């Protein structure tokens, strides 16, 4: 699927990321690299990771195909960062199998790292190095000896510009969002075959999220694979071709967005002034309808919005809000449990 995939649920007015792409200078040299690996870039089955008594991962399956942007969706503490650390060979799995580009990430970490760009979930910087120095150092460590300095400089300058990052500050002077930008500029300044991004937008404002989205589209068009973890459903819907939903260390669901559409709902609310049961009965496709605190609330299938919206227009409703369901609500509805702050499972002593 190309850049034409419309974001499923983008009701708010936000800058169109694809327009941002159009403004960017053409990528130099490599237009669309041929995808070296046909098939799976990441393949994890039955992945387990224990921290003492805590089962952080409990039989996780994850497969990411070459050339796709794969969303890795889960609530806080679901095990996203742990999985990503295992994929990078920073942590060792306690059980299960894992392959990245067909190799074992623990044994072949170094050769894999030549092909991988990583943005950690919680970026910290060296207090006495400037952001620019950190970017240069990490980029040099990543690409090794022979490289095209001029090309790197161009990319770096462009990224600093679009992310509006001042590279001359020292590490301590950056806010969380700016530290994240340092890691993002580092990741995108050197081409990679696989981008592993752990909640990369959690500190970014909406404008910067759009710039980030543009970079994702750019590297995807160049043929790279992206694994993007997030706890925000709408972000994943906007950017990703396929999604894996992780819940308490196991895979809850995986598939393309259209396969997962049954999961997504849209929440609609409007003022209850002048509404009565007979008028509300005219709304097409309404589920979970309730009247509370002067508002009418209902949900609809995200795939079947048009009739509902038409009937709302006919009712001349006031103060209408339409929003995608949050991940928490999705879990609540589909799996019938609250996963927010769910305690990690404790190992049962056998």
């Amino acid at each position, binding site marked *: 699927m190309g850049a034409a995939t419309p974001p499923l649920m983008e009701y708010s007015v936000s800058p169109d990321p694809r327009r941002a792409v159009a403004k960017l200078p053409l990528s130099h040299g490599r237009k669309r690299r041929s995808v070296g690996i046909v098939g799976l870039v990441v393949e994890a089955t039955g992945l387990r990771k224990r921290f003492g008594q805590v089962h952080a991962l409990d039989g996780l399956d994850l497969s990411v195909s070459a050339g796709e942007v794969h969303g890795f969706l889960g609530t806080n503490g679901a095990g996203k960062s742990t999985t990503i*650390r295992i994929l*990078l060979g*920073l*942590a*060792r799995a306690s059980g299960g199998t894992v392959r990245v580009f067909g190799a074992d990430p623990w044994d072949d*970490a*170094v*050769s894999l*790292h*030549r092909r*991988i760009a*990583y943005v*950690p979930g*919680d*970026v*910290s*910087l*060296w*207090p*006495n*190095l*400037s952001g*620019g*120095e950190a*970017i*240069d*150092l*990490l980029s*040099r*460590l*990543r690409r*090794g000896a022979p490289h095209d300095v001029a090309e790197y400089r161009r990319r770096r300058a462009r990224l600093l510009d679009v992310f509006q990052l*001042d*590279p*001359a*500050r*020292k590490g*301590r*002077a950056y806010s969380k969002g700016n530290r994240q930008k340092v*890691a993002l500029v580092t990741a995108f300044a050197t081409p990679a075959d696989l981008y592993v991004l752990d909640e990369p937008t959690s500190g970014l404002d909406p404008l910067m999220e759009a710039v980030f989205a543009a970079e994702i589209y750019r590297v995807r068009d160049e043929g790279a694979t992206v694994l993007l973890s997030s706890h925000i459903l709408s972000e994943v819907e906007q950017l990703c071709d396929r999604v894996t939903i992780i819940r308490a260390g196991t895979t809850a669901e995986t598939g393309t967005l259209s396969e997962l559409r049954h999961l997504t709902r849209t929440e609609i609310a409007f003022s209850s002034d002048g509404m009565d049961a007979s008028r509300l009965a005219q709304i097409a496709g309404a589920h979970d309808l309730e009247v509370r605190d002067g508002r009418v609330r209902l949900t609809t299938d995200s795939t079947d919005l048009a009739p509902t919206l038409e009937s709302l227009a006919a009712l001349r409703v006031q103060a209408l809000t339409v929003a995608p369901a949050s991940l928490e609500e999705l879990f609540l509805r589909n799996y019938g449990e609250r996963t927010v702050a769910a305690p990690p499972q404790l190992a049962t002593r056998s």
Partner: protein
Amino acid sequence: MNTLAPLLWQRARRDRWTLTYWILGTGLLALFAATAVRSEYGDDAARAGILRLAVAHPSILLLRGLPQGAGLDAFVFFQIFTYLALLAALMSTLLAVRHSRAEEETGRAELIASTRAARDSAAVATLVHGVAANVALGVAVAGGFALGGLALRGSIVTGLAAAATGIVFLAIGLFVAQFVRTSRGANGVSAALVGLAFVLRGVGDALGTPTVDGLHMTSSWLSWLSPIGWGQHVAAFSGDTLLPLVPSLLLATAAGAGALLLGARRDVGSSLLKARASRPQARRSLSTGFALAWRLQWPSIVGWAVGAAAFGLFAGTLSGLIEQATAANPTVADTLRGLVSSDGSVDQALISAMFSIVGVLAAACAVQSVIRLRQEETSGLAEMVLATPVTRVRWLLDYVAVGALAIVIVISAAWIVATAGVLASGDDTAHIGDATVAAAAQLPAALTYLGVLALVFAALPTATVALGWAVLAVGAVLGIFGGIIGAPRWVRDVSPFSHIAALSGNSVAWNGGLWMVVIAAAAAGAAVAFMRRRDLRV
């Protein structure tokens, strides 16, 4: 509810072990010094001999105190007070920075400042906590002396003097923390001020005027510039006066009030010295893991090297003086040799003693390099480096290499200054050879610390910081003070610093050094093996 109580509780709880070690350790040093002097310098003549030598060649006073007569109690005070005060001072600056700048740096201070706690509550709590810690340290010192059989009154005066010195540096540490952006920087500046106080007192005492009997000395005005000098001037067991502690109280009050005032007028997390604008691009050389480790460590390496150079200067200039003195009085030579536990000539013994302190400084610098590894790991910075094509083993070895380089630099700094000192003072140039052997002899001991701590980091990462400093402190105390505190031979043998090659005449015993190099290499090898197998642990 008062917010001071929970803040104090949090500090006490966080520091419960750290402060216990500092306070008990200082108290034990006082106790051992008292009992050891009793057994080793039991007779008046031996003590008078040492004092006369020191008075005649006052550079020795740099590392002891101000002679106040040959009485046993006063002699103990002369031997050990400077070090008790030094420990109190370092405990206090570390405590002050730990609860002020370090908290701001991590952002935890913001959490506290956003509660009902007043703007200065955290600083007030730190001051109260630090004063309480110093009172406890004073009690431990007084108790150590009293248990060691010294007069109660003088013991209490010593305890008060040590506590007062600590409290001054508590306030100074808090004051420094207002200016410096990072906790590492604030600790460095505070430690340098402690070092300055140590050196000012030493030089001031050395430039003092002796009495006719050669057993007492009045310091020059320089000593009165140093909080450690003020403590020294209580002259426990001889003068027993608390008047010299008045300037301590005044300075502590001024620095503490200054810190509170400055702290209340600036943003949380900001510093009064602003960071300079820095390079937007990295130098070409900053392109390897080793270059990063060097970049992170060189400022502290320079600091340790400057300290070591000062001891090198003593080693290079003292020896000539000693030689003349001992030629006149052979019994002094015997006692002095006992002091540094060596069989060579007295000047060789002194050079060895100076360089064993240099060895401790070099080992401390290397230990810091491994501790940096652990800090990189816990802060998440290691993750970013290790997600590039840098192996865990390579990453470990980069820091170990910087540690080894640091050892060489610190020892070389002392050796170069010692050699220059010998040449400048027109001494017997044979002392250059002695200094060279003494300097080389430190290498294996310092390398042993580096190798063993690297192994601890690889096998038991969470213990790295605590074990690193603890092992170094125990090794240094046994190696340097082993003689003074009368530790039995087998205990002293545990410390690598006891095995440094001994100078005796023209022959040098290198066996111990060879073994230590073997141990260091084996430990480093085991560290590599463990590092291959372990993942990152935060």
